[in-house]
């Protein structure tokens, strides 16, 4: 039991070319910036669009081979999809929404409604069976959508940003429920997201899609310990630089230099945690080998700290406490001294 | 022209709407003539000659079915002359004290069976109109031509099952000329064009229609109206009427 996607697909500016396999019982998170082709990839797997070349195989059976002859339309693929905005049918009750897929598979009205009611109870929504979607909260609606996708026992489960349209307050609960139901689902499952937390909590494996190409795949641990692109580093909250190591300094493309401790010479990527970036009003005197003045571009409150986005030749993020922001008077536009110890810069050959 | 009459009806409808909506705007030197639709061609021709002879006068023409003309007059339309296709309409106007002087008969007309050019269905007499293989149209009883047609059919003891009761002679003849109707009863003057032909109805069964003209008491161009009236009754006017198929009174 597995899903295999290996195809080319050109849609407007997007040129998607990928080779991905997802095993039964495995959740793959497809992450990437906007326009990288995540949703298009999901739609190709779902049969909502057809591919140009290549093959899509589910349990060895061809769903699409780019010729049009083998294309299996969505309604015959036996898949479950949860969309970003729940897309529950507005003219049907929650129960009828969940029963819809069962009815489409030829199950009688009564039986379908019974099964639907059971699914709603399992989602903790037994009391909302008769409600129309517009009277449900975002989190409730998304649970109904999940029940609707799962009720007809699909062979493949696809989730497209299932948490993006849900309030922050409801997101955590929904994420936990999602994790439970994903684990209970036996087939391959793919979740598209741009949120690192979703990817790390829900997925067993992550594939990073940028510009239509997979730039990195791996377990969550492998990805977070070794981000290969700025996007991945940003995703997991690390500062990221790419350049050439020469004489214990990493030379960036724009000429800026970063003193590093590395045996390696040549092309390399470097990461550093935002917490190891120190900020000073004056040029610091002491151990940090890297120090330069740069303007503050933005302040972004994080969970229990503030992320200070800094511009200049080597843009990076520093993480400081809210008390520091207040005592130092940090604000966008202010020029400040940035200092990083060479030992805090992690260099990996590329 | 295939839809000559239909198009005329269209133009008339527009004119009618326009003339009913504005009061005289063309100044004191124009005579307004209200005339039955069937008089369109000869009265227009007479008006042209009249204008040539009276360079200081213009003739405004308004053609419509008799019932419409009456309604316009009742609702306050102002005209100098009225020419109707029947005595009854003129009598009605007289009861409103709108006519000045007694109306004069200036032309006569007779009914005819109007068929397509070449008479493809071989219609020769009123009794043919009872044939079940023919699509026959008449005018409705609210139109004088419709009433006369009924009189003629009754006199000839012919029962017709019309497919439609048109609200104007023009519409009826138009549908015959398009071939949608095989025949209809209209005035002999209506068959005066390329796409249709007239089959005469013998005098014994026919109805003679009198056309009356009268000056109107609320008219603004009394002398001009009298002059136009005189021209209609003159040899010149009568010749033009005859050329369009009308009979002398």
């Amino acid at each position: 039991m597995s899903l295999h996607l290996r195809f080319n697909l050109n849609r407007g500016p997007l040129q998607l070319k990928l080779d991905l396999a997802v095993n039964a019982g495995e959740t793959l998170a497809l992450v990437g910036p906007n326009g990288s082709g995540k949703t298009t990839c999901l739609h190709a797997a779902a049969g909502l669009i057809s591919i140009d070349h290549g093959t899509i195989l589910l349990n060895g059976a061809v769903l699409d081979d780019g010729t049009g002859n083998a294309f299996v339309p969505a309604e015959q693929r036996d898949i479950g999809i949860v969309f970003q905005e729940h897309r529950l049918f507005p003219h049907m009750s929650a129960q009828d929404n969940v029963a819809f897929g069962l009815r489409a598979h030829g199950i009688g009205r009564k039986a379908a409604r019974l099964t639907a009611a059971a699914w709603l109870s399992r989602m903790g929504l037994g009391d909302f069976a008769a409600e129309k979607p517009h009277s449900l909260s975002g989190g409730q609606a998304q649970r109904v959508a999940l029940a609707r996708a799962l009720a007809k026992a699909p062979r493949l489960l696809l989730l497209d940003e299932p948490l993006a349209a849900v309030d922050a307050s409801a997101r955590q609960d929904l994420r936990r429920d999602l994790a439970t139901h994903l684990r209970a689902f036996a087939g391959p499952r793919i979740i598209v997201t741009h949120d690192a937390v979703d990817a790390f909590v829900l997925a067993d494996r992550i594939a990073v899609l940028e510009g239509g190409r997979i730039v990195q795949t791996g377990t969550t641990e492998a990805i977070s310990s070794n981000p290969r692109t700025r996007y991945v580093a940003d995703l997991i909250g690390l500062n990221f630089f790419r350049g050439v190591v020469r004489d214990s300094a990493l030379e960036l493309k724009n000429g800026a230099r970063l003193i590093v401790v590395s045996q390696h010479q040549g092309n390399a990527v470097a990461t550093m945690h935002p917490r190891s970036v120190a900020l000073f009003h004056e040029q610091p005197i002491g151990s940090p080998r890297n120090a330069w003045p740069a303007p503050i571009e933005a302040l972004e409150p994080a969970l229990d700290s503030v992320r200070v986005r800094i511009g200049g030749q080597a843009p990076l993020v520093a993480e400081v406490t809210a008390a520091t922001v207040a005592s130092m008077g940090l604000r966008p536009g202010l020029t400040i001294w940035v200092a990083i110890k060479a030992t805090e810069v992690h260099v990996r050959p590329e | 022209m295939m839809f000559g009459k239909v198009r005329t009806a269209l133009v008339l409808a527009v004119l009618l709407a326009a003339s009913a909506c504005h009061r005289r705007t063309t100044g004191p030197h124009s005579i307004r003539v209200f005339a039955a639709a069937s008089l369109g061609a000869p009265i227009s021709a007479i008006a042209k000659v009249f204008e040539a002879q009276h360079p200081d006068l213009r003739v405004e023409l308004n053609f419509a079915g008799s019932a419409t003309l009456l309604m316009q007059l009742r609702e306050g339309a102002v005209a100098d002359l009225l020419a109707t296709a029947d005595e009854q309409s003129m009598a009605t106007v007289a009861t409103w004290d709108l006519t000045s002087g007694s109306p004069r008969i200036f032309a006569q007309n007779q009914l005819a069976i109007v068929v397509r050019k070449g008479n493809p269905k071989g219609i020769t007499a009123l009794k043919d109109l009872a044939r079940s293989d023919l699509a026959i149209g008449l005018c409705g009883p609210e139109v004088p031509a419709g009433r006369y047609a009924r009189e003629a059919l009754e006199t000839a003891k012919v029962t017709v099952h019309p497919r439609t009761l048109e609200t104007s002679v023009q519409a009826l003849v138009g549908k015959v000329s398009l071939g949608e109707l095989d025949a209809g009863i209209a005035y002999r003057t209506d068959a005066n064009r390329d796409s249709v032909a007239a089959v005469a109805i013998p005098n014994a069964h026919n109805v003679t229609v009198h056309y009356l003209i009268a000056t109107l008491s609320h008219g603004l161009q009394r002398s001009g109206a009298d002059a136009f009236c005189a021209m209609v009754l003159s040899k010149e006017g009568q010749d033009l009427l005859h050329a369009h198929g009308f009979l002398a009174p």
Partner: protein
Amino acid sequence: MKRRSSSSLRVLVALLTAIAVALFALPILAIVTSAPWSRLIEQLSSVPVQQALGLSLISSFGAVLLAVLLGLPLALWLSQSTSLLRTIVRIIVTLPIVLPPVTAGIALLLAYGRSSLVGAQFERWFGFSLPFSTAATVVAAAYMGMPFFVLSVEAGLRALDPRYLDAAASLGAGPWRRLWSVTLPMIQPSLRTGILLCFARALGEYCATQMFAGNLPGSTRTLPLACAVAMEVDPELAIGLSLILASLSIAVLFVLRHSWTPRR
């Protein structure tokens, strides 16, 4: 200064608004006040009026039936893209809305009359020619009314988020189930608007019917035709018939009242 100019503007707007309202309200008021109320029941229960009313209902419901049967597939096809072909077809289908009805009648007569190719074939198949038949009143009414249905439904279909259909497909619904269980229920307001507008337009159809279907009591003389004929012989009856026609139209617009103002 500013206050004064704004208040004089308000007076002007109020005045013009009042004139505008009067322009539309007075004719309806005139019909209502001139209606021969004491004779109304007797008038309306007369055989010719009943016949005309029956024919009007047949032609209007027939037009709605044709509109749904033929207009729905057409609207589905039109809504799928904006190609040149579809634009041309949309213009052709919309034409009767702006075409002078008399032109529409002439066109119908030329296209489906018995001297036309289509009309001749029709006569061969059904044994009667289309013009001057009750069927012709349906065709004329449908020709004039269906564009409203097609435009309304097409607008509804275009406004329908296609992602709902993706969702339905992912749940295993084939094209028919998607159409029946998702598309149609979701465009129901446009369907209702389209049907009512089509019905109302068909009910009021006069000129094209007279031109194409003729004017025979009991066969093709619908209410508007009866009304026009009555105006020549019995104006009181004409006003009574106008009252029915106006009431039916007002009823349709009342049912549709929410379609013009956004509901919150």
